[in-house]
């Protein structure tokens, strides 16, 4: 399969703005991710994993340098077009207003609907298959507030799937899942990256899962960001430090 660069970071400095001032989290990063990559992001709490993921899909500003998505600057893309390229799964909770699991998954198709958000037959098929893939059929009409944390996580992942994007970013998607579901999730992600040639970035503290399923690891530590092969992980000093001696 042809290796296509779908995400490029050029000397990118990432962070957020607070009272008009830049708060820098990650500095001068040069990285490239390719279609079909299944990359695990590891790093200690607060190191900038979420910042990186949010910056990649335009939720946080690029303070310096640039991020290219399919060769176009992430900030110059129309939101609607960006929404068709990158889907994100965050850790934040949403709910209320009668929102059901189905509604959230259906929202994944929003970039493809008209301005009255009318769902056509093909939209509905995609939504249903996303629900099926994530195994939440029996819970799809439940209110979000009534879902367990694990089911909620699966719902958001289904939303990201329904968005049908070549790039998927997942911020600690395995946090609330049971052991079997964690493996199911990583198997699914691996399958998606392999069969549909998606570029998937997933941050997690489940290092064993990352080692088992991912194709590469992005190791973020205080003084470096390294993209390493899974095989060489156990020789990597930064990775071992994050592992805390338990790997």
């Amino acid at each position, binding site marked *: 399969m042809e290796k296509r660069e779908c995400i490029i970071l050029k000397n990118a400095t990432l962070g957020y703005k607070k009272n008009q001032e830049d708060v820098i989290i990650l500095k001068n990063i040069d990285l490239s991710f390719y279609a079909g990559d299944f990359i695990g992001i590891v790093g200690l709490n607060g190191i900038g994993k979420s910042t990186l993921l949010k910056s990649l899909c335009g*939720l946080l500003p690029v303070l310096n340098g640039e991020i290219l998505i399919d060769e176009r600057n992430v900030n110059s893309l129309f939101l609607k077009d960006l929404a*068709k390229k990158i889907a994100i799964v965050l850790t934040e909770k949403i709910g209320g*207003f*009668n*929102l059901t699991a189905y*509604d959230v998954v259906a929202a994944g198709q*929003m970039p493809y609907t008209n301005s*009255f*958000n009318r769902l056509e037959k093909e939209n509905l098929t995609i939504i249903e298959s996303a629900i099926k893939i994530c195994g939440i059929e029996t819970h799809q009409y439940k209110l979000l507030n009534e879902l367990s944390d694990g089911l909620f996580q699966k719902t958001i992942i289904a939303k990201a799937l329904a968005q049908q994007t070549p790039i998927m970013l997942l911020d600690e998607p395995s946090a609330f899942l049971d052991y079997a579901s964690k493996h199911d999730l990583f198997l699914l992600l691996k399958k998606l990256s392999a069969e549909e040639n998606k570029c998937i970035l997933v941050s997690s503290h489940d290092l064993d899962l990352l080692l088992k399923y991912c194709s590469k690891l992005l190791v973020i530590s205080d003084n470096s960001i390294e993209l390493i092969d899974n095989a060489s992980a156990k020789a990597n000093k930064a990775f071992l430090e994050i592992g805390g001696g338990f790997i």
Partner: protein
Amino acid sequence: MERNTNIKFLVLICLLVVSCILSLLYGGSEHIDLGELSSNNFIFWHIRFPKTLTAIIAGCTLAVAGLILQIIFRNPLAGPYVLGISSGASLMVAMSILAGGSLHLMSEFFIGKTFIVLSAISGSFLITLLILGISKKVNSNVVLLLIGLMLSQICGAIQTALEYFSDANSLKSFVTWGMGSLANTTNIDLAIYLPIALICLLAVLFFVKPLNALLLGENYSQNIGVNFKTSRFYLILISSVLTGLTTAFCGPIAFIGTAVPILSRMVFKNSKQHLHVISCLLLGSIILLLSDAFANSLIKNISLPINMITTFIGAPLVIYLMFKNKSW
């Protein structure tokens, strides 16, 4: 599910027709004889008709403004009245009457009305922006409501101060605008009120997609291709125009903006906002029409203040919701 929804809408439309008739025929002290409904029946065409139409427009505008505010603040208890936005609009009207009185603007009908409408809209816009700024600092729905209450008290206090320093001429005009009433709009007023309200309500229909997306919060709505900040700005603008407009013609009407979207979510147990926009239009009109008919027929020959009735409907709903949803 679809069929169920259709039936509910059908029932609401029937209710709307019935409440229109009730308001037209029983929304006042005099007996209306349907047999004599010629075009020159002044009571019917110039007193009842404008009041009924005003109730419908006010119900629609406030309910939709409330729906928008609840989604923007992701707070099911929000509304133009409880967040102090109506009071902000009233205050601006009071200020403009004071200024306009000295500029002799108020006696020219259209200039005076436009002036009042514009100041009410700017007042509600400013308070909405202010409360939006505050909402970023607090993460509790109830605290936001308390702040709204305080804002409304502050606006009220400033208004009292203005009343106190004003002379006999403008004092009466203040009080006239300060109380909620559906009976003060004439057919000529409606020539301004109705078109602006219609334009804004139509505009809302083009924002149902952002409204749906905004339910998922800032990050997810951005990620599914809806510009959160831009949509929010336009939605705030629309809700301010809706609130300001109605406050300019009817004064602050209590709790409709909060209660109707809550009821709508109780009736239609889903999160499709295009349904809720339409059901808010229907429910808002129905509730205000019935409140008006009720206010006029409860005690013979005495019309009770409309806000008394709407508060009796709205406030218990808000309290109920506070109890029901303990997670706040």
